[in-house]
């Protein structure tokens, strides 16, 4: 058997073929940056979000400092909104950038330039991905993260306004806007795949069932996600924050390879609902275990997640910046000693 590199292992696990790998992958497709890593490689927020050299160092820190088995870019969820003209609050070392202003007043104002992936920080992201591929060869997987259509809609229109439109406007118009945004995501991924990335992570935190009904999810989000699954042409992980239990039957039909469940969803429950239609990744609670727990608590949570059948062992959501390195590493340690026989 050829050597099982972290890249091969990740690609098997994330597509639901973990039993063909030697052990579970510990690639993290969500936000991986912590203050400890920023200090260790001298690439702090907010500068690392805009400087290609620092972005390269911080992306590499996921592997170099923590041992996570993959790289992920970008570090924030504002690339799309910024390229479309939103003002960004750049935050600080322990605070992620956030969107400050919206750019479109109405659904009909939505206009995405044809060259959108050449604007804002898209080129920086693709350049750093290319450099990671050059410097690390094929050993580790590279994840291109995109901000999902519903979350981008919230950024560019304002989330409350967009929520109200889901009730007051024709569903077809709302879906069309989301579809247009998804085409921007697709163009971004096509470009990223040319830069050597292997996996796409669609982070759509706002599309949570704490906000949206399962009916809206099925009728508006699902067709948009299916469009992305059909066109992107690489393994895709979807992440939605919060309690997504009521979405699981639909997510199973999205055409995506994996779904990343937040801490409110029991991975065993998710596996039971989706069966082998889609892999379930995540399982290590970010707040109770990784941020405020101990290495021992993280190990217990990781073992529990593996027992429940997660396909990639990773944090349940983006890592809180103040997470201690010893806790983060404890998760990786568990993945490393798990062997499939």
């Amino acid at each position, binding site marked *: 058997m050829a050597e099982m590199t972290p890249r091969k292992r990740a690609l098997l696990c994330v597509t639901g073929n973990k039993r063909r790998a030697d052990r579970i992958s510990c690639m993290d497709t969500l936000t991986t940056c912590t203050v400890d890593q920023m200090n260790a490689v001298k690439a702090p927020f907010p500068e690392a979000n805009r400087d290609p050299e620092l972005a390269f160092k911080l992306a590499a820190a996921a592997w170099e400092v923590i041992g996570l088995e993959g790289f992920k870019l970008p570090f924030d969820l504002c690339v799309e909104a910024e390229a479309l003209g939103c003002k960004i609050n750049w935050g600080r070392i322990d605070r992620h950038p956030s969107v400050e202003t919206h750019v479109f007043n109405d659904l009909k104002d939505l206009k995405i330039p044809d060259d959108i992936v050449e604007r804002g920080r898209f080129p920086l992201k693709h350049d750093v991905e290319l450099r990671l591929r050059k410097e690390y060869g094929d050993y580790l997987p590279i994840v291109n993260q995109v901000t999902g259509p519903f979350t981008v809609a919230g950024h560019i229109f304002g989330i409350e306004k967009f929520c109200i439109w889901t009730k007051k406007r024709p569903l077809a118009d709302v879906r069309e806007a989301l579809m247009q945004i998804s085409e921007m995501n697709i163009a971004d991924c096509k470009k990223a795949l040319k830069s050597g990335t292997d996996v796409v992570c669609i982070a759509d935190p706002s599309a949570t069932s704490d906000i949206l009904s399962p009916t809206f999810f099925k009728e508006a989000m699902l067709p948009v996600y299916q469009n992305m699954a059909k066109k992107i042409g690489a393994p895709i992980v979807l992440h939605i924050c919060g*309690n997504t239990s009521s979405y699981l039957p639909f997510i199973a039909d999205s055409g995506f390879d994996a779904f990343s469940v937040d801490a409110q969803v029991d991975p065993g429950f998710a596996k039971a609902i989706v069966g082998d239609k889609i892999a379930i990744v995540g399982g290590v609670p970010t707040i109770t275990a990784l941020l405020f727990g101990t290495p021992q608590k993280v190990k217990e949570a990781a073992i529990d997640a593996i027992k429940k059948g997660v396909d990639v062992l990773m944090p349940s959501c983006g890592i809180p910046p103040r997470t201690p390195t010893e806790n983060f590493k404890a998760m990786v340690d568990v993945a490393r000693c798990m062997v499939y026989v």
Partner: protein
Amino acid sequence: MATKEEIVNGFMKAIVDGDEEASAKWAKEAVAAGLDAYEMVTKHGGDAMTIVNQKYEKKEYFVPEVLCAANALNAGVDILSPHMKADKTSVPATVVLAVVEGDIHDIGKNLVKIMLSAAGFRVIDMGKDVPSAALVEKIKETKADVVGMSALMSTTMPRMKNVIDMLKDQGIRGKVKVIVGGGPVTKDWALSIGADDRPHDASAAVGATKGLVEKLRAERGETW
């Protein structure tokens, strides 16, 4: 001319349906018929929002429906408020609300604000992305009875602990009750960082706030 019952029912239905125009129409009818504007807002508007929240709890309604209802209530309040004679029988408790620093997700906090205002609380809304120190200053300045903090991101919810620790350090934790909320915030975690309660949604926040204010006033030897 519509009867009082028709006006009240029409107003409540308009709110539950999230129909701003109908809500404004019935509010105007209420004014024309000389109904008590204060009662229209706090009692009937509040009752309608309770129905909305029951539907939310039953997963019949989701955030978009609740936002539409809140907008409809506001459309009615805009018309009724110039005609309101404030209830002078009790001193309203003061609640300071904020979304913690680094977090810009304020839907939940806005819903809580609407519900608490409709229930008669004096609500001071600091908005979103509020630095911990600024929030603590505002609590002191307004002698707030309750502070409500919200976070939708697991990356920002640790700030809640930060605020509670600051209240302890400054010796004022006993003077103010703390409620927290937001998607990733569990009750266990809320209690573990020293919060008093974690109501599970905006309507539960009203009951929780009332309970905490009663407790606080009893601790202070006051009556509610």
